[in-house]
Every structure is written in structure tokens, then in C-alpha cells.
């Protein structure tokens, strides 16, 4: 019997939690930023897919990596009050998360904004002056993964993933 969309949703969520655990271990051991960001990107993408697969079907969501920029802010907006004593997220924080969500999506090599953004957390790319850029030697200046906002975003991603990981 083929797996149901509910089973796929749970599986994406469980894997997202495992990716977040891996990111934490890497952060604790001072691993290079590209590796920390790579696991953050994977966790964010799978969390978004967990929340998309139920209504849209697994076949529609399985192939693309481009789900984070649009959907992570929606997910953050819904989960924030559930984890913050029913207080709504601040507008400035939602805007910051929207910007970060786009940057996180662009970490996937397949998402390059029409070849304008080749920087990614996995593979070397050619820079603007023809130089080779290597992820583990690059500092990813658009994402400070120690900032208060990103730490709170990671907490929201975890909460969002947990919500589907518990589903039967």
C-alpha cells in the first residue's frame, strides 16, 4: 500500500528534527559555518515540506528546494504565539525572518536566484572576479547564525517540525 501524505509529513518532520540536532552538534564543536548552515537549510526545507505535503500531496512537493522563502515566514507567524505565551510576533522580527528565510533558501545549490546568487553551503562556485569560492572558506555575510533572531527562528522551526512529528 503506498504511503499516505500524512505519513510523508511525519517523516519530513522527523528528519528535520534530526537535521537540527546535527546542526547543534556542529555548532557545539565549532564546525565551519557552511556545515552549520547546510543543516539549517535542510531542516528548514523539510519542515516547510512537512507543512505543505498534507494539502498539496507528496508528488507536488518532493522535487523542489524552493519552499523556504515563501513558507517559513508563514510557519513562523503561526507558531510564534504558541511558543511565546500567546504573544504575537513583532512586525520587525517577521520582516527579519522573511529576509533570513530567503537567504536560507539560497543556501541550496539549486536555488541561485536566476544565477545571481551562486553562494551556497555545499559546492564551490565562481565569484564575481572569476575566483573560486569554497563554502568552508566563505563567511556567508548575509546570515549571522549566532544572532538572536536566527536562534529564535531555529526554535520555531523545531516547534513546527515537532508538531507533525507527533502526528499518527
Amino acid at each position: 500500500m503506498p504511503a499516505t501524505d500524512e505519513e510523508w509529513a511525519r517523516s519530513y518532520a522527523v528528519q528535520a528534527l534530526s537535521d537540527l540536532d546535527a546542526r547543534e552538534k556542529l555548532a557545539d564543536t565549532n564546525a565551519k559555518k557552511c556545515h552549520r548552515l547546510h543543516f539549517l537549510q535542510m531542516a528548514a526545507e523539510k519542515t516547510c515540506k512537512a507543512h505543505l505535503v498534507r494539502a498539496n500531496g507528496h508528488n507536488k512537493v518532493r522535487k523542489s528546494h524552493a519552499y523556504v522563502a515563501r513558507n517559513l515566514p508563514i510557519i513562523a507567524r503561526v507558531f510564534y504565539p504558541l511558543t511565546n505565551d500567546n504573544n504575537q510576533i513583532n512586525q520587525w522580527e517577521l520582516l527579519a525572518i522573511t529576509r533570513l528565510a530567503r537567504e536560507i533558501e539560497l543556501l541550496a545549490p539549486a536555488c541561485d536566484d536566476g544565477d545571481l546568487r551562486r553562494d551556497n553551503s555545499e559546492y564551490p562556485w565562481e565569484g564575481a572576479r572569476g575566483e573560486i569560492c569554497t563554502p568552508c572558506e566563505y563567511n556567508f555575510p548575509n546570515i549571522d547564525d549566532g544572532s538572536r533572531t536566527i536562534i529564535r527562528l531555529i526554535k520555531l522551526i523545531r516547534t513546527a517540525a515537532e508538531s507533525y512529528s507527533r502526528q499518527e
Partner: protein
Amino acid sequence: MKKSKLETAKSLANAHFQVEPNLKRIYLIQPINDQDPNDPIKLLEVVEGTIERGIEPVSFPADPARGMEYPLMIIEISPTEYKSIRTAGKVRLRNHDWTIGEELLAR
């Protein structure tokens, strides 16, 4: 006492208007099926500047322990996308055919 789905939808809409400055309109997608707690509250949110991907709902399971009494589904579309579906008054997705219902306003 547990709020009805319509009351919950209105509260959610109000909260979303407070935090999302680009949110222009919210519509309740019907039927609401108040007797079925497993059928999600469905909100169609028209957001200026959102990435245009058509009808692509984001689902949230109920989490009563955290105050989320009903499952929720948010369909975020751009004003241009809204114009293209407004005439039909329907939202079609897979085997569903929903009606664009009451507009929920900021209080």
C-alpha cells in the same frame, strides 16, 4: 469554553493583520464544517509581495495543549493571483473545490 471555528478564524485573522504589514485581505474558505473538528479552518490570505506559486496551502495540525484548537490551512496568494481566481469565486486544489467566503477584517 471552546471557541467555534468562525470565532477562531476571526481571532487568527486579526492577529495576522497585526503582524504582517503586507497582508491586504483575508477570506474564509468554505465550507467551514463546524461539526467536524478534523476539517481545518482555511484562510485565503492576499499578501502583497509574496512569491507567486498559485494555490499552495500550508497546513498546521491542531495543538490544543498550546491553544490551537483546530487544524489550520493558510493559502497565501498575491493580489494579482487573487484577481485571477476572484471571478470564479472558487479555490480548486486536487480533489477539493472550495468557495471563497466571508472576508475577515482587522478589528
